[in-house]
């Protein structure tokens, strides 16, 4: 307990330096600014803004990136409420009641309760991360290569279960992602793999390039296919701060959403995406009059938004303690950390405690800042939302190009985001989701490394993966999940959840 307070104290001391506060504020602001653009989700936002953190020291860069992430999340909710366009899967639920509230002239209250709920959830999640970091890190240290491998297999199975649409296609995308990760020089034998003799592929495919291609450029192409019908609320935004009655109505949903989101967020394999869905259906079940839902019930905004933010934050836990990114956003964080010379994992906490705790403390500060800066800036955001898409996407395209070029001054990579974008667009046309591919790509290298190391230690005996009880347990969970998800009855239920 004293440890926890001491550590948080250290973190606050780092995060409260003037420079880091400014960076956190800037991150939140630009994150919201970009995240609010319809059709630009957190992944595209972060990859576009990644280069602006290059000139900073690692602590500052990570604080700013975390700010960008929360800003992008909050921007996505704003767009969901005001325009009915969810920037990413988790914001879908917010559109249901949030946009209805906005159409009834209560946009301000919807945005307000989303911000307040997110702040409360963020506070709780920050404390949870701080409390769990130590024990989980010590757990990570007893993990051998076999356990790591099995954990990642379980994470990927989770990602399959939680992916939209066909399970088989999600599995195929994960395999494809892992296959892409094997491009480049093999670290153990030094052989060039599938590089087609091209120099720029020798280091492997750059993660930022792949992410920006399949999430930034492909998204533009997909949006261009749809005729634009943007339904920015014309009603007055109304007052922002919820009244006493509205606070009373939202208090319990915020608490429940926070807990659900926080727990699901820790799961490897993008559990965070489930949080808002689960919170929404729970609130609907618990409500005295469920028919209000879908027509602007404040609980339908408060619960899912809290769950969303709690999950967004606790998904840092597997990354910071085990070094395993649970979803595509965290995979981008890995990329960013690597650029700054930090290898995410259990050693970060002991080797650079100021970075670790500073980042955790700044998560809380970032949430607080979002609450303060966004409420008065809603007028500006509404103006931004009215920019027509045919002027917005060329700007996004240029920023993506400059962003990716500035990572290592390599024009080929700009060409590659176009090609990956087109590939991602084609895959999406045929019902393949890009998110599992990206996760497979990030975990691929780690998995291969641990797989080979485990076999080396066991002298080629595959039984090593089931001899260790931890590894066997993790694999058993993965198998059970996979079997359950393939059962016809569960499949129908799963389709219903995502169709709602």
């Amino acid at each position: 307990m004293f440890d926890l307070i001491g550590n948080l104290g250290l973190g606050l001391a780092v995060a409260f330096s003037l420079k880091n506060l400014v960076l956190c504020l800037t991150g939140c602001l630009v994150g919201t600014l970009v995240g609010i653009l319809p059709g630009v989700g957190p992944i595209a936002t972060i990859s576009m803004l990644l280069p602006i953190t290059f000139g900073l020291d690692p602590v500052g860069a990570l604080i700013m990136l975390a700010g960008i992430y929360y800003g992008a999340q909050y921007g996505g909710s704003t767009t969901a409420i005001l325009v009915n366009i969810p920037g990413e899967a988790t914001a879908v639920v917010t559109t249901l009641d949030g946009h209805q509230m906005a159409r009834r002239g209560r946009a301000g209250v919807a945005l307000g309760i989303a911000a307040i709920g997110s702040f409360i959830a963020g506070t709780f999640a920050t404390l949870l991360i701080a409390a769990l970091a130590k024990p989980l890190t010590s757990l990570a240290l007893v993990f051998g290569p076999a356990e790591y491998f099995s954990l990642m297999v379980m994470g990927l199975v989770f990602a399959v279960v939680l992916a939209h649409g066909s399970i088989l296609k999600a599995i195929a995308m994960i395999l494809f992602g892992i296959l892409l990760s094997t491009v480049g020089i093999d670290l153990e034998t030094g052989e060039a793999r599938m590089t087609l003799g091209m120099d720029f592929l020798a280091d492997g495919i750059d993660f930022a390039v792949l992410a920006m291609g399949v999430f930034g450029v492909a998204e533009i192409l997909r949006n261009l296919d749809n005729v634009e019908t943007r339904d920015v609320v014309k009603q007055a935004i109304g007052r922002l701060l919820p009244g006493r009655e509205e606070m009373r109505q939202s208090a319990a949903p915020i608490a429940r959403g926070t807990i659900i989101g926080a727990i699901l967020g820790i799961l490897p394999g993008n559990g965070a995406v489930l949080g808002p869905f689960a919170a929404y259906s729970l609130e609907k079940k618990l409500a005295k009059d469920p028919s209000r839902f879908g027509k602007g019930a404040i609980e339908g905004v408060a619960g899912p938004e809290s769950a969303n933010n709690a999950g967004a934050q606790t998904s840092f836990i597997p990354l910071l303690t085990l070094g395993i990114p649970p979803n595509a956003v965290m995979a981008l964080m890995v990329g960013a950390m690597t650029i700054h010379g930090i290898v995410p994992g259990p050693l970060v906490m002991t080797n650079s405690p100021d970075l670790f705790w500073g980042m955790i403390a700044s998560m809380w500060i970032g949430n607080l800042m979002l609450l303060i800066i966004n409420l008065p800036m809603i007028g500006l955001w509404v103006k931004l939302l009215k920019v027509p898409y045919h002027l917005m996407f060329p700007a996004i395209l240029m920023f993506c190009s400059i962003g990716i070029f500035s990572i290592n001054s390599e024009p080929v990579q700009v060409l590659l985001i176009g090609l990956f974008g087109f590939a991602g667009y084609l895959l999406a046309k045929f019902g393949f989701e890009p998110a599992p591919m990206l996760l497979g790509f990030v975990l691929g290298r780690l998995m291969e490394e641990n797989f080979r190391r485990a076999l080396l230690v066991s002298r080629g005996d595959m039984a090593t993966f089931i001899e260790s009880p931890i590894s066997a347990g993790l694999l058993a969970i993965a198998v059970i999940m996979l079997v359950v998800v393939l059962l016809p009855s569960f499949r129908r239920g799963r389709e219903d959840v995502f169709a709602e």
Partner: protein
Amino acid sequence: MTNVARGTVGSRKQVGAVSPKELGAAAILIALAVLGFALSSELPRGTLRSVGAGMLPQALSILLGLCAIPILLGARRGDGGSEEFTFSLRGPFLVLSATALFALTIKSSHFDGWSTPELGLVVAGPLAIIVGGYASPDVQLRPLVTLALFLTPFSLVLFGDLLNLPIPIMPRYVQEVLLAGWSYRGALRLAAALMVGVGVLVLFTGRRASAKTSSTKTPNATAGG
């Protein structure tokens, strides 16, 4: 996303039709599997005791190909077949061209025997915006040009001046011959200022032109800039 789920449920009614979408999906997987296997076939597979560089890519390619089989079977049942399946090449072609033009003009690239000139961000940025902009059917040239003339200097100052990222600003000979005595920052600021100046001019003349047309033709025409 939800369309996929709905499509699967809805299509059970019309058994017998082959879904082009699922067929295409299976074809893509098979193509990827063949490509992956072909590219990694020369690599040593090794043994379980010492895994070679080729083992994982080859195994993954085979698994990827295996995924295609149930999808193919599903396509025959007509899974997901009720959806509309349309393609437009305008968007992908122009967006790809925009990134390609940016890549070829921002910095000089060397190929066997030839190389591209370095034209810098003042050329590459507007090219990407204007060519990319034509991907949308709602395109208008004047707003795009105005956008380019303001966003490019903004990016110059943000990335080059404030963030210190090494981005080529302008065609090399302009910088070396015409602005011989100038520093990187000075040249950057000059270029940015010039672009903003032209941008303001375009905006201003656009307003006047549209004010003229709106006073003569339709009273409620919106400004072009």
